């Protein structure tokens, strides 16, 4: 358990950090929404007659289309997929921890050792992805400094979360770090936290409208060879 849980509520430094983190969160949300609005740009009118339903495509693209059986990026790269998934679980837990700390600073973690182990695994996954990006020629050639900064920032957040969970750092330090991440989030690659959903919805909707989605590619039938 973190050593400062009992007194963080009354610490002025903590209160300042809490406000800065909240500003960081508002900044991130606002900037993401502004970027969404600019990207939308008034939208694009659709003049073609539909063959299917956009909503069916959107639902399909967020469900079945994401299954390994329907996505080569998963079925052909199960290790990377699991590693990526574990890393994202760690990031979400860490962000959740920040929110809990902001809303209810005195909350005592339920199972700190389990959370720390899980975060530890996520950190290792993060480092794997970082190293992979550095050494794989294809990945390196498409990467900008932002790609490395973004992953290091999220790994850092998870390390901070572990340190906080195990009482190595105070809540102030954890929140200082989190606010840095929130200020950077809408500027670089981390903005995919929003655009993942928007892009997937738009793509699914478009393919649904055209009758491509929901797809029938899993139909069992006779094939040659």
């Amino acid at each position: 358990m973190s050593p400062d849980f009992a007194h963080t509520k009354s610490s002025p430094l903590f209160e300042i950090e809490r406000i800065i983190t909240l500003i960081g969160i508002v900044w991130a949300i606002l900037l993401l929404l502004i970027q969404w609005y600019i990207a939308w740009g008034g939208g694009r009118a659709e003049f073609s007659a539909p063959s299917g339903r956009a909503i069916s495509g959107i639902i399909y693209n967020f469900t079945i289309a994401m299954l390994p059986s329907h996505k080569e990026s998963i079925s052909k790269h199960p290790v990377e997929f699991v590693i990526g998934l574990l890393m994202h679980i760690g990031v979400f837990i860490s962000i959740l921890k920040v929110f809990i700390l902001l809303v209810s600073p005195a909350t005592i973690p339920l199972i700190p050792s389990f959370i720390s182990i899980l975060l530890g695994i996520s950190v290792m996954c993060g480092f794997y992805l970082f190293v992979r990006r550095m050494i794989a020629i294809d990945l390196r050639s498409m990467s900008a400094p932002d790609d490395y900064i973004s992953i290091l920032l999220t790994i850092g957040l998870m390390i901070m979360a572990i340190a906080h969970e195990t009482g190595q750092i105070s809540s102030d330090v954890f929140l200082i770090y989190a606010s840095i991440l929130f200020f950077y989030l809408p500027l670089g690659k981390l903005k995919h936290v929003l655009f993942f959903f928007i892009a997937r919805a738009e793509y699914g909707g478009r393919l649904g409208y055209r009758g491509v989605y929901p797809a029938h590619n899993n139909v069992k039938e006779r094939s040659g060879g």
Partner: protein
Amino acid sequence: MDDFEKTARDALRTAIRGSGAYHMDACVRCGLCADSCHIYLTDPVPENHPAVKASKVISLFRRYNTLLGMIAPGLVGARRISQEALDELVDVVYGRCTCCGRCGINCSIGADVGSIMRIGRTVLASVGKVPPNLQAVVQNQLMTGNQMSIASDELKSTAEWISQDLQMETGSDDARIPVDEKGRKIVYLINPREVKFFPLSLSAAAGVFHAAGASWTISSKFYDVTNYGMFSGHGDDAAEITRQAVEEAIRLGAEEIVLSECGHGFRSFRWEGPNWMKKAYPIPVRSMLDVMLEYIESGKIKVDPSKNTERVTLHDPCNLVRWGGVVEQQRKILKRVCSDFVEMTPNREQNFCCGGGGGMLSMSEYGERRILSGKIKADQISATGAKIVATPCHNCADQLLELNKKYKLGIEIMSVCELVFNALVGNK
């Protein structure tokens, strides 16, 4: 900012509106799309990696549309639009990508990489950087109404001799290709390659229409289903090509436009055309595949699968299937007209591009890459053991003919319509 940069930047701003920017902001460069690209699989160098290719377009987007791109471009890999940057982009978006969209369908995030690449083409087209051979095809369409500059008289005489052959074959004087006849229900748009190189395909369509008792005609002026403006990326050219054909169909008094088997022709006419023109068509547009399936299912034509006994497999044109949504019609038809139909693996929206898409066939400078990238399709075909490859696209058919020769596949390439015509009950 000079005029060149401003023009390209304006084109970029217009092209990304509504969806393009979403996908550029969504790509995390995880690199997992590599295996989905036929070009990368056959030549696995970084330059062919879909995310590397997309990142070249995205770098321009970031420079003008993201905060860090504007104040610290190096940090996010943003790049200013310049002659040099766009010259490099030509090889990337025209020469290393067919915009088939397979990487997008398989993207772990859901970023539509194919559309990102098309945005790259739009930017290049805005400043006149379309490869000359591709642009020449567009110019042909704009100047003469069809991509091969076939004169109206030539079309008419071809229709005449095809009609004569068809009448002999069917034994009916009514079997013919009606040209420029007003008041017919259907205006049929064809690929000019059918006139020049694949008359059997046009003859088969005429035979099917005749068997079904359809009221149809083709225009001698604007009959081209293709639209290379889609490949060049120039929206205004694409809109003009679409407008010519739609207005001609209206002039002829048609109630419906039916599109011959053509992948990009279907996509450009059915889906992109109204958006390029910024207005809905006054009459419906359908694929010949829809029409044939309707004829078969309604009993307007009778077919006998024992007339096509060789093993048949189906190649799915990307623009018709993955971008167009015409997926099951051709399968239902082939199951009715062939006795031994087998699927390729993978198929439908997961099909691999044959390598001839995106206007590649018109850009001879990329010929070697095109044939190499077709190796995936050649292997798919070989694995089926099929003797006939049906493909509802003349562009794909051209590429498959070359793959057949190069990889010694020993196959025959046919349109779906030809197989339907073969299977017609009552035909010789």
